[in-house]
C-alpha cells in the first residue's frame, strides 16, 4: 500500500509533536500540572513549542534565545543562534511544514469548517513577523531591563499564543496558587490566543504567516537551504495549479525559494506534469519533457493558436476538453 505525501507529512507532524511533548503524565500530577525537569531541556526543539508546557521535553528556541540575551551576563546567545542557523541552512522552512508542533495545532484549527471561503491576508501582513523578531525577540530582552540588568522575554510575555495554550491554560487551571496571580497580562494573552485561533480558522496558518519569529528566521534561510523546491522550466506548462493549491499564497514557479514556502509539497502533488520537485540538491531532469508529460498522464494534442502546445495537462485554460 502506497502512503500519500499528505499522510506522510501528517505522520511526521504527529511524530514531531509527540517527541516534543512526550511527558503527558505531567499534566496529571498531584497538586496540579508540573514541568519536566530533565537534561533534555538543555537542547532546543527546531519548532515552536513552549518549554513551560508540562509535557514539553525540549526547550523552545525563541524562549531560549530571549532567556540568554535577557540575562545579566550575556546579551547574545551563540548557542541558540548557531542551532537555528544550522537547522535553517539544512532544512529551511521545511521545519514549519513538518516539525513545528504549533504549526500542526494551527492546521487543526483550519479544519473547522466555515460557511464562506477562506480569507487571504494583505501583502504587508507577511512582513509583520520580521518586525516581531527584531523588536520583541532581539531588542526588547536586551534593552528593556530591570535594576539588576535582566530583561524579560518580551515575545513570550506579550505575544506567544503557544505559551498560553500549551503552558498557561493547563497550569493555571490545575494549580490554585497560580490562579491567585492571574492579572491583566493573562487576560491580554488569552485575547491574543483567541485572536490567533479565529485567525487560524479564517486563514490557513495565520500565526505562521503574520507573527511567528521562528518562521521569519527559517524564511530568511529558505533562500539558501539545502532542502529546496525546484521547477523544471521545460516541463512546466504554466497552468497555475501549483499557485492555486498553495495554502501559504506562494507561486512556486515565480518564487521557488519564497520566504513564505513551508515546503508542504501540495504544489508538487497538484502539478500535472511533475515539474515541481522538493528535496536536497539540484534537480537534474532524467527524461525528455514529452516523455515526462506522457508518464504524468497528459495526452499530446495538436498545437493551438494561443494555447500551451506540446502536451495537454487538462488545465482548462485553452477552453478545450479532452475526450
Amino acid at each position: 500500500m502506497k502512503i500519500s505525501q499528505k499522510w506522510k507529512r501528517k505522520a511526521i507532524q504527529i511524530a514531531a509533536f509527540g517527541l516534543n511533548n512526550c511527558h503527558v503524565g505531567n499534566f496529571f500530577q498531584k497538586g496540579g500540572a508540573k514541568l519536566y525537569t530533565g537534561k533534555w531541556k538543555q537542547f532546543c526543539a527546531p519548532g515552536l513549542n513552549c518549554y513551560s508546557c508540562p509535557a514539553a521535553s525540549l526547550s523552545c528556541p525563541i524562549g531560549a534565545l530571549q532567556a540568554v540575551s535577557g540575562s545579566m551576563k550575556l546579551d547574545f546567545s551563540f548557542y541558540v543562534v548557531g542551532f537555528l542557523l544550522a537547522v535553517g541552512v539544512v532544512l529551511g522552512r521545511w521545519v514549519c511544514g513538518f516539525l513545528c508542533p504549533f504549526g500542526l495545532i494551527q492546521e487543526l484549527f483550519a479544519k473547522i469548517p466555515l460557511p464562506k471561503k477562506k480569507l487571504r491576508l494583505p501583502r504587508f501582513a507577511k512582513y509583520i513577523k520580521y518586525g516581531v523578531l527584531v523588536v520583541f525577540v532581539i531588542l526588547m530582552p536586551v534593552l528593556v531591563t530591570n535594576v539588576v540588568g535582566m530583561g524579560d522575554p518580551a515575545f513570550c510575555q506579550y505575544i506567544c499564543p503557544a505559551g498560553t495554550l500549551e503552558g498557561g491554560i493547563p497550569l493555571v487551571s490545575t494549580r490554585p496558587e497560580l490562579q491567585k496571580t492571574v492579572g491583566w497580562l493573562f487576560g491580554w494573552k488569552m485575547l491574543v490566543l483567541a485572536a490567533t485561533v479565529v485567525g487560524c480558522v479564517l486563514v490557513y496558518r495565520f500565526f505562521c504567516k503574520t507573527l511567528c519569529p521562528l518562521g521569519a528566521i527559517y524564511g530568511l534561510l529558505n533562500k539558501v537551504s539545502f532542502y529546496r523546491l525546484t521547477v523544471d522550466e521545460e516541463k512546466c506548462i504554466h497552468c497555475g495549479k501549483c499557485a492555486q493549491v498553495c495554502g501559504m499564497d506562494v507561486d512556486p514557479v515565480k518564487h521557488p525559494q519564497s520566504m513564505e514556502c513551508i515546503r508542504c509539497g501540495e504544489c508538487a502533488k497538484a502539478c500535472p506534469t511533475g515539474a515541481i520537485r522538493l528535496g536536497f540538491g539540484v534537480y537534474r531532469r532524467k527524461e525528455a519533457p514529452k516523455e515526462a508529460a506522457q508518464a504524468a498522464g497528459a495526452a499530446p494534442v495538436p498545437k493551438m493558436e494561443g494555447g500551451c502546445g506540446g502536451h495537454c495537462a487538462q488545465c482548462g485554460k485553452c477552453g478545450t476538453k479532452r475526450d
Partner: protein
Amino acid sequence: MGSSKEARMTALRILLLTGAAVMIAVGVSRGEVGMVLKKAVVLCLECIGLG
C-alpha cells in the same frame, strides 16, 4: 541554475554551517547550555502570561 551559481551557493551553505558550528561551540563554552536548561526547567511566568 548555472553550475557556477550553484557552486557559489554550496560554498555559502558550507560557510554558514561552519559558522553555525563555531557559534554552537562558543555558546557551549560560555555556559549558555546551562542557562537554557535553568530557564526551561523552572516555570516561566512570563511565558504563560503571569509574569
